[in-house]
């Protein structure tokens, strides 16, 4: 964990906006779809046409309550307010949001490192449209013209506001990662930061020692990845410390993270920023979910990441290595741990199930979620039994996912994967050693780094069909 100089401590709270996976927008029946042609998912409500009225999507309410339940929030009767400010991406020039009574009140989130981060609220609101800028420099400032696409306007969002309980950039990253895993697990959101379906703003301040009162905070926007979040929070804390140590003061402001430059920059704020003139939205009526509805959602929620990690460790048995712990964290974070559990239940060696799922399967994108578990298990069993090398198994896995399932044995055969007998391995090794005498001499003198060199040559010569373990054993035998 990075430490700050001279006894300074950072205080961080995160505001996370997540889009909900509803079929339609929050207040109208237009499709909630990413990547459509501009201004096609549009109706009078999306354009803020005179006379149009919002009607609340029941699925968005359900999803919001799912998130609140997963974050241990108090679920309560709530209502909507209007947040008034002019901006061209807002079709009505106000945003329908929740203000004094959010649907989800106080809750908490336990980080894997044991830290408990308070949740202040998780409320429903509508998204804005998207603005692009043409002419000028291409960035917002200095553009000659801006173009607006309202497809995203009205997409349902839940804004999750943490308490200022985070004390390091790593922890900020950990919170965002854990929250994303929870959002995905709850079924309410897909948590894709790159597509902007999950957006993180960080409130950062610093203070001297953990008993000092909170300092003046700055809000950092434009954090498009977990890496940006961690870098930006670190940068911002150090920037504030530098200012304070130079005897200057912090101005409360919104700052923009510049990923390329690696620094935060002040944003031009508007007069309205301090005066949103919130008032109760007169076109909507309150939401009062029944206890039965809330209970039903709680019952239907699947296991959350923390519980799944505990269960996985138990299934692995014994004391997992650090590498395995990392694999396990990643598997849960990426929501692929059900493959591990399924494989272990079917009798696959836990270490293989864990490694193949966390390292290879998780890297293959969203298509993996349509891969039948039985086909995956069949593949791992081939590897487990030694019928396929690890390298071969990985190649067949890619084929299997691309095909959306199938018989792994047949796919292996199509690739011509058949186990080499020891005789042919010997012959290949003879040739490789003869062609690389210097490397062989250094290997025999104890330069173990050359193991990889020879293994790679064997794999190249056999087109990956050799079993890595067998190659290593043969090399060791010959070295004597």
């Amino acid at each position, binding site marked *: 964990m990075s430490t700050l100089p001279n006894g300074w401590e950072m205080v961080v709270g995160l505001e996370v906006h997540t889009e909900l996976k509803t079929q339609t927008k929050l207040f109208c029946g237009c499709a909630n779809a990413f990547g459509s042609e501009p201004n096609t998912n549009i109706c*009078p409500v999306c*354009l*803020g*046409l*005179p*006379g*149009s*009225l*919002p*009607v*609340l999507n029941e699925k968005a309410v359900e999803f919001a309550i799912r998130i609140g339940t997963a974050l241990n929030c108090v679920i309560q009767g709530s209502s909507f307010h*209007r947040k*008034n400010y*002019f901006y*061209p991406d807002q*079709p*009505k*020039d*106000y945003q329908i949001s929740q203000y004094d009574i959010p649907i989800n009140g106080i809750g908490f989130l336990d980080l894997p490192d044991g830290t408990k981060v308070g949740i202040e609220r998780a409320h429903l609101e509508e998204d804005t449209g998207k603005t692009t800028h043409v002419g000028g420099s291409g960035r917002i400032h200095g553009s000659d013209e*801006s173009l*607006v696409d309202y497809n995203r306007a009205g997409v349902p969002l839940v804004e999750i506001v943490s308490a200022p309980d985070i004390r390091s950039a790593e922890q900020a990253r950990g919170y965002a990662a854990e929250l994303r895993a929870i959002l995905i697990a709850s079924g309410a959101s897909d948590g894709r930061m790159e597509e902007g379906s999950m957006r993180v703003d960080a409130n950062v301040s610093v203070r001297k020692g953990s008993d000092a009162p909170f300092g003046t905070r700055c809000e950092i926007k434009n954090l498009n990845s977990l890496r940006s979040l961690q870098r930006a929070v670190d940068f911002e804390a150090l920037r504030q410390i530098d200012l304070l140590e130079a005897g200057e003061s912090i101005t409360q402001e919104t700052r923009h993270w510049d990923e390329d430059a690696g620094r935060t920059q002040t944003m031009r704020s508007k007069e309205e920023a*301090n*005066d949103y*003139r*919130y*008032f109760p939205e*007169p*076109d*909507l*009526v309150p939401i009062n979910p029944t206890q039965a509805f809330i209970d039903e959602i709680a019952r239907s929620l699947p296991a959350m990441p923390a519980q799944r990690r505990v269960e996985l460790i138990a299934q692995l048995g014994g004391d997992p290595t650090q590498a395995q712990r990392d694999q396990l964290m990643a598997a849960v974070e990426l929501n692929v741990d059900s493959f591990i559990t399924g494989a272990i239940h079917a009798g696959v060696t836990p270490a293989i199930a864990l490694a193949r799922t966390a390292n290879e399967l998780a890297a293959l994108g969203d298509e993996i979620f349509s891969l039948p578990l039985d086909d995956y298990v069949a593949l791992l069993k081939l590897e487990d039994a030694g019928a396929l090398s690890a390298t071969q198994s990985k190649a067949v896995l890619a084929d299997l996912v691309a095909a959306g399932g199938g018989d792994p044995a047949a796919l292996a055969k199509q690739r011509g994967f058949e186990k080499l007998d020891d005789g042919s391995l010997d012959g290949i090794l003879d040739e490789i050693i003869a062609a690389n005498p210097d490397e062989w001499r250094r290997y025999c003198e104890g330069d173990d780094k050359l193991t990889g060199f020879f293994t790679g040559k064997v794999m190249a010569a056999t087109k990956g069909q050799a079993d890595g373990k067998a190659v290593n054993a043969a090399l060791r035998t010959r070295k004597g």
Partner: protein
Amino acid sequence: MSALRTAQDVADGERSASEVVAESFRAIDQRDAEIHAFLTLQREQALGEAEALDVRITNGENVGPLAGVPIGIKDNMCQIGEVTSCASRILEGWRPPYDATVITKLKAAGAIAVGKTNMDEFAMGSSTENSAFGVTRNPHDPEKVPGGSSGGSAAAVAASMVPLSLGSDTGGSIRQPAALCGVVGVKPTYGLVSRYGLVAFASSLDQIGPFANNVEDAALLLEVIAGHDPKDSTSLNQPAPSLVAHLDHGVRGLRIGICSDLLQGASDDVATAVAQAAAVLQGAGAELSEISIPELGLGLSAYYLIAPAEASSNLARYDGVRYGLRVDGDDVTAMNTRSRTAGFGDEVKRRIMLGTYALSAGYYDAYYGQAQRARTLIIQAFAKAYGSVDLILGATTPTTAFGIGEKSGDPLAMYQSDICTIPTNLAGHPALSVPFGKGVDQMPIGVQLLGPTLSEQRLFQAARVIEQGAPA
């Protein structure tokens, strides 16, 4: 020309819808150059619809309770492809891509929209002088205002250009012009008529309602436009009330309170008319009492904070980006500002600024918050009153129609003309205005009947009794 009779004649084949609609346009052509009740006419569209209706009737189809009846539509209700400007430069020439729910219901009932009627810009005003496209004149005296904001709709019915029209009532914008023009005007219970497609002024107060020459026609029109609409979240989950069938049930045994607070500031002739209307009700068997609801006196100041607050937000969308007037500028803020400055008239600007101020940081509690609490007091006071009476009787307006230009320079004096109608909107209750004789100036007087939520049936019964007992 009764709408009910016309619809029956058309349905029975006694008259053709085409003939009825053509007659309406003849009346408009004859009188509207002077009155200016209409902003736009839908001549071809209306005649085409009438012909189609006539064909359906010939084929023996049931064409609905308003078959062939011409109707005027206030220019703040969206109608596909027809200019809907709210009498504002900022929406000049704007044609909506969708129909308001009331328009859909009218079409289904066989009514024929003949044009969009003049109004105060965005329904803000009490005289129709705030229209960006010229004033409407009172058919009883062209030097007088027709009232507002639905002045065009009231005048069109009063001048017999159409038997029916639709208005919207946020603080009295149906009842006040109905009284000043000598026609019946109804503000229904909040949520009884869908607001979908009604261009919002103050969403928690706005309600669409009918104008007609008589109580029966108004009841018929309200039956057609009322009812639950899933497109309006504040729409009541209620079927349309049955009004026409119960119209002649009388008022025997009905407890009616004459409210002194709805007579304050009333001129002698108006006060006399209310007293005579009360006598008519008593003569028909109603139990009269005098009541006082002093909290209603808070209505005007509460209203002139709440309505502008909501309006300041509702009218933010007129920013020159997606539709409506754009006046270009160097950056988007300049463009927004120039468009709005050029597009809105003074009264609209006044209310937007007032509402912005009432909601702004540091003033919310003193103004908007306090107005909301006063609203609670008014609702509680009404509830208490309705514990001992069934309906309340009072003036609709303190005076008969005033002269054009008489109050237009003095917003406060203008606001005072809504003093009797505002409390109903704050409570969400129904109320109506029925003509009752004339003042010393020979201008029409209206008396107002108020009732609790969903008391429309009783209100219409009492209105019918007053109508039948009114001086010729």
